[in-house]
């Protein structure tokens, strides 16, 4: 087990390095850089060409933009490891300031969505399998297919429309009521967040919850058809013990191993919802940074998301190894 963990940690470091290089290269690939954008912006604002030239030259020097990309990467990577994420040239603020709160909120909401998804999907999927072809099963099959097929931004729009027209709400979008948006963190702000967040969880998690219900149902049906379930029945066990102690343990495996993959899905899936509902999440920020060729900001976000993803994957695999002796053996 120890070698397995060490092996995985080593793999994670390799993945991180590859991702850092790759994201940097990709962001640098398109012709032109931030300075081109800046020059255009300033020209549009009819600034004196001399001032433009001097401003551009200043930026170029400050960030070493004229230099070889490899040197820029090395500078950036080194400072990133020290926790300095560089400077957002678009927003004129340190990247860490911009990322900080949004990232923690994003992670918080993603984890909450995952938990929400499991709490809803696993019992429903199990019950659908146990009561296969019952009214319950048919109803949730219908709802799950609906959930899978409707894009989340449509759900978000419908939700906005309904809450404005039917409930006369004035502040439906956002994570906080207007009075708390800029306020410092407090108990009241947290309570306010809780009031808003379940809607977000529902909208962001709907599609994944629906597909998880389907996976859980299918896997549970497979498991219930296995001979070892007959063995358990023949011991005289109660249905509850058969379903939870024997069947669930096996059926839940693919769902746990999918956590690592769900995580980035939720983050990217929440981007559009975040735009529609104007949520202060990391997705819209990343989109902006990519469009504005804000190299340092974009790369930092990509690297942080990758880090979150591989840590999530690692935890999922550890959970799986802890649950399933067969995986322990292979490692």
């Amino acid at each position, binding site marked *: 087990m120890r*070698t397995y963990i060490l*092996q995985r940690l*080593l793999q994670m470091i390799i993945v991180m390095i590859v991702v850092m290089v790759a994201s940097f290269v990709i962001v640098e690939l398109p012709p032109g850089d931030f300075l081109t954008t800046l020059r255009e912006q300033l020209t549009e604002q009819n600034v004196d060409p001399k001032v433009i030239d001097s401003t551009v030259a200043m930026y170029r020097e400050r960030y070493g933009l004229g230099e070889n990309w490899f040197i820029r990467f090395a500078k950036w990577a080194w400072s990133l490891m020290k926790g300095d994420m560089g400077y957002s040239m678009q927003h004129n603020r340190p990247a860490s300031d911009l990322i900080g709160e949004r990232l923690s909120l994003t992670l918080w909401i993603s984890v909450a969505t995952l938990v929400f998804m499991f709490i809803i999907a696993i019992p429903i999927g199990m019950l659908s399998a146990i009561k296969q072809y019952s009214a319950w099963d048919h109803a949730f099959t219908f709802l799950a297919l609906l959930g899978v097929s409707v894009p989340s931004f449509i759900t978000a729009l419908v939700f906005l429309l309904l809450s404005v027209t039917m409930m006369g709400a004035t502040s439906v979008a956002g994570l906080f009521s207007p009075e708390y948006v800029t306020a410092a963190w407090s108990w009241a702000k947290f309570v306010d967040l809780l009031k808003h967040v379940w809607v977000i969880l529902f909208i962001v998690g709907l599609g994944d919850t629906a597909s998880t219900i389907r996976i859980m149902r299918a896997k549970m049906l497979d498991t219930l058809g*296995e*001979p*070892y379930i*007959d*063995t*358990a*029945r*023949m*011991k*005289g*066990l*109660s*249905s509850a013990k058969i379903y939870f102690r*024997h069947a669930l*343990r*096996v059926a839940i495996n693919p769902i746990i191993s999918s956590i690592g993959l769900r995580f980035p899905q939720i983050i990217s899936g929440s981007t559009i919802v975040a735009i529609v509902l104007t949520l202060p999440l990391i997705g819209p920020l990343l989109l902006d940074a990519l469009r504005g060729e804000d190299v340092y900001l974009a790369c930092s976000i990509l690297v942080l998301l990758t880090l979150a993803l591989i840590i999530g994957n690692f935890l999922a695999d550890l959970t799986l190894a802890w*649950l*399933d*002796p*067969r995986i322990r*053996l292979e490692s």
Partner: protein
Amino acid sequence: MNSAANPDIVLNIHNLQVSFRSIAGTTRAVNGVSLDVKSGEIVGLVGESGCGKSVTIRSIVGLVPSPPAIFEAGEIWLRTRQGLTETLALRKNMRALRQIRGRDVSMIFQEPMRSLHPMMPIGRQITEGILEHEVIDPTEAYERTVEMLDLVGLPNPAGQMNRYAYELSGGMRQRALIALALVCHPQLLLADEPTTALDVTIQAQILDLIKDLRERMHMSVLLITHNMGVVANLADRVSVMYLGKIVETGAVEEVFKEPAHPYTQGLLASMPSLFSEPKTNLQSLRGIVPELAMAPQGCVFADRCPYVMPQCSETPPLVELSAAHSTACWLYTGADTHGPADDSASSVEAAPVPVLGNRNASPGQPQGQPPQPPASDGIARTASDAEETIQLQIEGVALHYPILRGLLRRQVGTVRAVDGVDLTIRQGETLGLVGESGCGKTSVGRLVTRLVDPSAGHIRFRVPGGLENITRIAQKEMKSVRRSMGMVFQDPLSSLNARMNVRNIVGEPLMLHKMARGRKVDDRVGELLELVGLRAGHQSRFPHAFSGGQRQRIAIARALATEPDFLVADEPVSALDVSVQAQILNLLLTLQQRLNLSMLFIAHDIAVVRHVSDRIAVMYLGKIVELGNARDVCSRPVHPYTEALLASIPLPLPGFEASREMPKGDLPDPANPPTGCRFHTRCPYSQPLCAAEEPILRAQDQAGGHLGACHFQDELQLQGVEELGKSLRA
């Protein structure tokens, strides 16, 4: 319930009728089954797949989900700790059923791997059962589990408690399952094909274990199997089931000695036995088990019965032939019959089996004289060893797989699947290759057809123009060689592409080798289909439209499409029902004779191999341990492993107890084979020399036709089976 009132009766099934409702309609899977199991008795329920055996015994414990099942009639009385209980009525009463399950009646299943929970330690799975039924201290439950594991013969039982199913071998898993089933001392054990998935030597151990436990634990067993040999070996009484009905019931001795129902006779005659004349046609039942919905009215066996008569359109009555033997057949009603069995039981004794042979060749099967065994005396063999008669020769062929571990995929070991095998197959000869799972027999088949590349050795194969060394030639050149080779695989369904019709499946080799185009392909495919006993007009059908036996015929037609000289048949009948197995074996024998094919026939069942082969090679852990004339190998084995294989086969001879010592333990890990003689860990005759030095394959007799790889083959007097059969019959 007069019979249930008998205190001796543990289980009484009376007139059970179970139907299944589906979109296609309602089919009656169990149609009026009545069955008794007495205290301490082992009752066998035999029949081919789909005859309703499993539904019958699963109904006893409420394991048949309803819907889709409908229990139309019948009663199932089970003696429980609460007294006699009618369990059929309990199927909606989970609480009552749960008290019976595991405590009064237990069940073991066919696939030991899948029947144990994959993620729960063995010990916990067993103690869970005890704790469910008894108010008992967990440490006491633990101790009882260890005792039980010891009783079923698991070595180091306390050490097994924390192991998982995948860490145990197949035989050990089945032992653990038996311990699980018996830990609460039920009076009745239901065993659903308990040894079908196991190797023969392991099967023999498990059968012995069940017999032994029956005595020790004073329980009864209801055993389901398709293998008549297992029934003869284990059961006291037997019921033969066909299409949801019991056609014959009786004491095992009587049923095997004087099978009354034509279906029972057919089942017994279909089995290739170790006493039959090799390379002769088996007396198979005609046709196949029909779909339940297509079952004939009246006697369900009427459409396959050689004695069918007008009365058979009515349901036959149950006829008592003796106190302990009854059958449902019009032949024995004393009414006006025409047929070999006139009106008394005495005509049944007149060996009805051979009579069956005249009428029962399957409809499409090529008729003709049974093939004659080729002359195989020593002198002829020496002469025929000449180069020009060799079809295939392999020398020192090996197949090694590296075991890779760790981050850098270092090679930490080698699986020696095939480890230096020499074989020669002459033109027109069938060489049988026999061994247990993991011995490398399938790998040999794949090596000679170059489906895998050998790690060492030479393969020479006769192509038009002489023997060619095909060991290292490119796959491109191999294509022309393959024209002279055909291959038939074990599973006829998965070896036929489900999206191709029969014309394309059988015609593909013709087109690939540019032997025919367009209309000519259709004509040739038609010929081939008729050759294997199918209709030429079925070319446009897809594989799923055929039964298992017909699919295997299609696979044979495909293998023969390019008119090869050589056929590799890898377990061609082991996935088939007994009656169909006999038809396919007959077909292979006839075709081989007619087309002068050479054949490598690979199987795990030495009786089947003996039946079709001229010579037999016995394989153990990647090595040939014995090679010789088929009958010699079976009647005078020189290697203890061959003797063990022969002794392990359950013979259809009730009351016969194998006097020889059975091989101990499990097959060793092929990645880490024992030193010296690979069989020494299991050999009853093992000496210190065996562990130290590896024996070579050497000639046993002067003629040099019988080879063995045992240090003591000249001293040991091993027992074959043929003489044994003769002495028993006499």
